[in-house]
């Protein structure tokens, strides 16, 4: 049943005004567009369209895949080896290198700061010969597809602020996550799935790992429809997705039809446009009941594909299983897919923990990149392999003690990107001989955010949302620059 013409007409009218509202009404009051508490805008919002005027220019990537390594991945051990680390092994880090920058409370009281070289040997990989640890043999094979940024930096040195910063652009809670911004700006391309999906896995390196928070995929001040929807292992992948026991799908359909009928009748009488958005939301929920199980059913994946991701892929909830789901989500044009893999916080026993942690992610990550490539998805999917900070080149604890680890290091660390918009097979930025300070092309995490948005065709400076009097951006109030040197 359709809404009666006058109401539908009115609704369209309201909607149009909302989206040109900034200009149409902007003076003498808050523009309609920011009055999201009024019921008007959401009928269209429920359809998942993005902001008017976006993208600002032709995007190189339509989707984003963020493989977030939670806890602080050791750039020293995995990507940033230097001859000096071996020469200087066991010796105190030079004061000129260590400088006066702050350390966390865990190591600030240490009596010595001896340099600890990478755990394992590595290979010079790809045509450009970039060093990657032998702890990541599969990732070594995709060196030509990825762009390794060795000069990322952040001011935060503790997990909570650092991971919140990396994911929302602010160290304090309350801000919108990267994926929420993408959903808000560009909307969805798939009416049967949310635009932003997040998955969490626990690594075998350090178990349990550092906590992650729902705000990392939250919508902050943006409308709640843009928050990341968590996809969980097991029979009920999305919260409340399953019908109650004793309700068949046909019954649910009948129920929804009846509900829609009642809602329409009331919408006609009361003229509340919100009712129509409600009907749409119920329909989307109904479609998700089919689309999500279909998504998580990997029984039709070929044995070759499954094998490529490694044995863990068959175990729901693992990083490997989530990688495969990520590919299936990207195939379905989900705008932003984010994995969080916990357990990278190697303060202690790095020698025992790190190999396990690497093993979790090495094969599946490489397989995912290759799989995306083989299916032609990599060219318009931006892949961001990131973490909240790196780890210190000096040891935490006693040198030679199996319990030794590395502390947090935000001054310089490594992330890598691949896919749509990115030049593969290169390194960008550099650190000093002790991979402690940046010597070339520093990239602040804000610059990374600006670059992600750029690949999506968005000028970060123009993409704002008014909140408490401020035009808030993902990149915050400080300057941010697109990292042009890595763009394809």
């Amino acid at each position, binding site marked *: 049943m359709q809404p009666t013409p006058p*109401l539908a007409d*009115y609704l369209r*009218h*309201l909607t149009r005004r909302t989206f040109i509202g900034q200009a149409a009404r902007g*003076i*003498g009051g808050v523009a*309609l567009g920011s*009055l999201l*508490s*009024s*019921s*008007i805008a959401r009928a269209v*919002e*429920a359809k998942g369209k993005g902001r008017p005027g976006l993208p600002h220019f032709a995007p190189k990537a339509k989707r984003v895949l963020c493989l977030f390594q939670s806890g602080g991945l050791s750039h020293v051990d995995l990507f940033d080896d230097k001859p000096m680390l071996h020469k200087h092994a066991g010796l105190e880090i030079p004061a000129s290198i260590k400088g006066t920058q*702050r350390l966390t*409370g*865990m190591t600030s*009281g240490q009596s010595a700061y001896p340099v600890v070289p990478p755990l394992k040997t590595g290979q010079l990989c790809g045509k450009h010969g970039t060093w990657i640890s032998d702890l990541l043999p599969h990732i070594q094979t995709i060196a030509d597809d990825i762009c390794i940024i060795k000069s990322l930096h952040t001011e935060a040195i*503790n997990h*909570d602020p650092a991971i919140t910063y990396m994911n929302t652009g602010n160290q*304090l*809670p309350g801000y919108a996550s990267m994926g929420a911004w993408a959903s808000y700006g560009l909307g969805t391309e798939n009416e049967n799935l949310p635009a932003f999906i997040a998955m*969490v896995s626990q690594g075998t390196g350090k178990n*349990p*790992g550092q*906590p992650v*928070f729902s*705000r990392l995929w939250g919508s902050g001040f943006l*409308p*709640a*429809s843009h928050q990341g*929807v968590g996809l969980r292992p*097991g029979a*009920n992948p*999305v919260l*409340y*997705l399953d019908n*109650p*026991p*004793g309700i068949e799908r046909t*019954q649910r359909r*009948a*129920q929804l039809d*009846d*509900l829609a009928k*009642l809602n329409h*009748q*009331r919408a006609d009488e*009361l003229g*509340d446009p*919100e*009712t129509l958005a*409600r009907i749409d*939301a119920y329909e989307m*929920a109904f479609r*998700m009941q089919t689309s999500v199980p279909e998504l998580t059913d990997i029984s039709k994946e070929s044995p070759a594909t499954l094998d490529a991701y490694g044995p863990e892929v068959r175990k729901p909830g693992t990083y490997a299983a989530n990688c495969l789901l990520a590919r299936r989500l990207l195939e379905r044009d989900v705008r932003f897919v984010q994995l969080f893999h916990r357990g990278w916080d190697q303060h202690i026993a790095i020698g025992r923990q790190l190999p396990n942690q690497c093993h979790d992610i090495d094969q599946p990550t490489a397989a995912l990149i290759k799989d995306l490539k083989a299916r032609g998805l990599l060219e318009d999917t931006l892949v961001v392999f990131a973490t909240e900070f790196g780890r210190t080149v000096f040891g935490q604890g006693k040198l030679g003690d199996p319990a030794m680890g590395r502390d947090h290091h935000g001054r310089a660390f490594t992330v890598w990107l691949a896919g749509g918009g990115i030049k593969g097979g290169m390194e960008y930025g550099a650190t000093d001989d002790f991979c402690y300070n940046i010597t070339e092309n520093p990239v602040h995490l804000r610059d990374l955010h600006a670059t992600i948005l750029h690949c999506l065709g968005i000028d970060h*400076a123009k993409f704002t949302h008014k909140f*408490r*009097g*401020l035009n808030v951006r993902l990149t915050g109030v400080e300057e941010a620059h697109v990292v042009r040197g890595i763009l394809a």
Partner: protein
Amino acid sequence: MRFRSLLSPLVYGLPWLGGVAAFAGAAEVDLPAKVEFNRDIRPIMSDTCFHCHGPDATSREAGLRLDLRDEALKKTKSDLVPIVPGNVTESEIIARIFDRDEPMPPAKAHKPLTERQQALMKRWVEQGAVYEPHWAYAPLQRPALPVGAKKGNPIDAFVEAKLAEKKLTLSPEAPRNRLLRRVSLDLTGLPPTPEELAAGGRNFFGNGYVKQVDRLLSSAHYGERMAVWWLDIARFADTVGFHGDQNQRIFPYRDYVINAFNANKRFDQFTLEQLAGDLLPNPTPEQLVATGYNRLNMMTREGGAQPKEYLAKYGAERVRSVSAAWFGSTFGCAECHDHKFDPIKTRDFYELQSFFADVKQWGVYSDYTYTKNPELAGFNNDYPVPPEIEVPSPYLAGRRDRAAAELNAHVLAGRARAADPAAAGRWAAWQESARAFLARVPAGWEQPAPVAALLRANKTVPGASPLVTPEGAVSTAKALARGEALRVTLPPEPGPLAALRVEAFPPAEAPNPETLTRARAAAAITVAVAVRAASGKERKVPVAFADANAKDPRYRDGAELHGIGAGWKLPAPRPAEPLVGVWLFDGPVTLASGETLEITVTGETTVPMRFSTSPFGAARPLDVAPAALAAALTAKKPSAGQRALLVDTWLLSTADDRAGFDHHKQLAANLRELRDGRTWSLITQAVAEPLPVRVLPRGNWQDETGPVVLPATPSFLPARRESTTEKRLTRLDLAQWIVSPENPITARAVMNRLWLQFFGVGLSAAVDDLGSQGELPSHPELLDWLASEFRDSGWDMKHMIRLIVTSRTYRQDSNLRPELRDTDPANRLLASQNPRRLEAEFVRDNALFVAGALNLADIGGPSVKPYQPDGYYDALQFPDRKYVASTDGEQWRRGVYMHWQRTFLHPMLANFDAPSRDECAALRTVSNTPQQALTLLNDPTFVEAARLFAARLLGDPQAKTDVQHLRRAYQLALAREPSAAEFSSLAKFIATQRATYRANPADAEKLLKVGLAPRTPVKLDADALELAAWTNLCRVLLNAHETITRY
């Protein structure tokens, strides 16, 4: 009127003007005859000029400042005058605005002016460039009522005057039931009952409606509803928010808020108590609980976090939250720089922060080996977050009384057993053996000679023989390490044993917290008991409960553990009396000849301990009373009390009635859980020496070059108060200034937010920003009138709410008025009410209330845990969290009592837009998402509610037919009659459902099993199918948009 933005020919002549074309395309635009600064110009300037030409000196360009008229009229360095009132051609800003090549604002700002904005600026200068003080900061004076206002509610006079300007009138009053549902939901968060609808309907016109309003305002549920509003502002939560997001104990603060609204506490008093209750003369416990407000900032325990960084965060958060709550202002911007749009200076930010520098707190609420925290020695992630006070909780006291009565009744009933002939033999035999035991061991505790050994990984360490003192106490020379245990073998006489006693003899001197490791500081003694047969085989002795005469508290997940069963932390400093702990066995064990009692002690301790055993149990461990027993056993004629003691001891020592023994154990545990009706709550404690507060350059806490500032009220608001070197202002001074009649902003901010509660949008829609970047109120005089009335009425909240909800503006119908689509698409003129989707808590309350399942028995109390999907807290660590849903009546308490986990808010709350309350949340977004649909359809809370709703309908003795059930369902859920179309559609629906479940009865059974509420008392044994069918119909109704909306 029409205005054509024609350019004076003179302007063309100016060399720096880009050219003619800039004006050639100027179209006709609507402009007001009289341009007003606040309404027309300030929003433009704030949005496009102030960033570079506003209050912030550091980002000011070309030395040009436009927010102050005097400055804007001065010649700049380049010898041009920005604004020459009345002279457009001489005014540089006008020229620059119309500059075609390099227009202001510059392109890089991405904020080009529209033609209309340009024209407005020009006309404003033409008309003399008159500035007005920002509306929110201007002195608050009660405005006169509009000319020609009729008698009656002044709110209507203001609203109708505005409508009249557009030749509009209010909508007619909403139909009676709709209005009663609206006002019930708005004032109590609950819909009206059919009875209330019937009663309210009788004399609705005239005084009837007002009577209904007064009834609702005096309901205890009014406070629960209003608390939801304030708790968002106060950022009330059950957890600390950062990192491990551990629990904090502060529910009494929520009770305080509920009670304050119910008692209609004056808002000025409410303010004083929360900000500075501890500084009032002789503060009451209630006033101290209120100061929990200052402690509701997020806190951390993250390892490695630097205390100073977090102290800076806590300080800054308080400024943001206090300024948001009481000023509706965005002070946050001024943490790093002078505000770009409002006259808030960085110094204002830190001066406001300085008021709170006396709040006792720690940057990191934990004790780490690498960053010692002697004041919090032993504190880990399981500990609470001090300072706290212990206060009585009426809710817990009520439950305690009920639990105590239940236990008492059980004990009384149990005594009949002694008179039961079937048990007479055992009863007599026990008395005989008890007498014999006490004759042999008059002290009542047998103290067999111990043999001790040191175990490592469960193996005896050869050569390491623990010390046994002549008094029979055992100790080790070195503290037990992890994996080590002290094994003590006791050979009591064969026979029954019901309890183990441990006497501990710690050294008189407490360990130095400066040198203690956290593990050591938190160390506790744990005791495990087993019986060892001659064969060497051991059987574990389960313990029912253990407690000591003195102990330091131990915690799990922020809650104090009961007893010492999970570990006995010896008190420091050591008390004068000897330390005694007693372990009551879970039913007696009987030692055969040759069997020994094996005690395994773990925990980092060197304290000598002496062990003894007893055949006597008791209700509580320390109640084992051999002397009284001996007297009773040997009395010629035992008194009633002595006889009761004997019977109780018999039952508790022998578990003669095993089921009764177990039930007793459960009831005693229930009673303990209520902690004698007392609980803890975070409070503000003032330290003697407030921390120095510096202006932090760019907000950098590591930069100590900024000046130290003292408390002062914001410089841009009237009646400023500043500290002097002699007199430092306090939080109380701040609070008093906030509620002083001279402060114009608080009354405005609070009334604006209150309006939102009843109309869905504030008079100024940006309720969280009353600054330049916010919105001029749609009805500025009305807002000022409300604010004045609020202040002058003695900050009387109920008075203001009563005024609002009895106005015709509030009472009008909410139907859409399509004829207003052009004049007022967002309904800011209020020619009709706005429908409002219920807030998360009330979506829940409403469904449960309609189902007849909402537990409204008590007001206040600890947070409750409704059903939540398994594994939802999996990513939450330090410590690991397991969510256990409430299993008793607490499962169906109101949403306001739901456990508020900041990092993982209950998905039902989160899906319906409840904020995580990390900081002050004045404005909830209202979304409409598939997640909401899934929640209402499938969350067990709502499925169960539908089942209970259906049972309620079918159990109604008055109703027999489908039609009757449907009518009742509509009355309950929607306060109205179903339409004919609804009837026919639902009648068809119920028929299909019946058919479905007749074909699949097993499905009906499955559906009816959802939820903990027992299958209803309705007689439906024969017809579970009918209940299932109606459950589905009720699910449809509970999911209807109308049900979760108040019209």
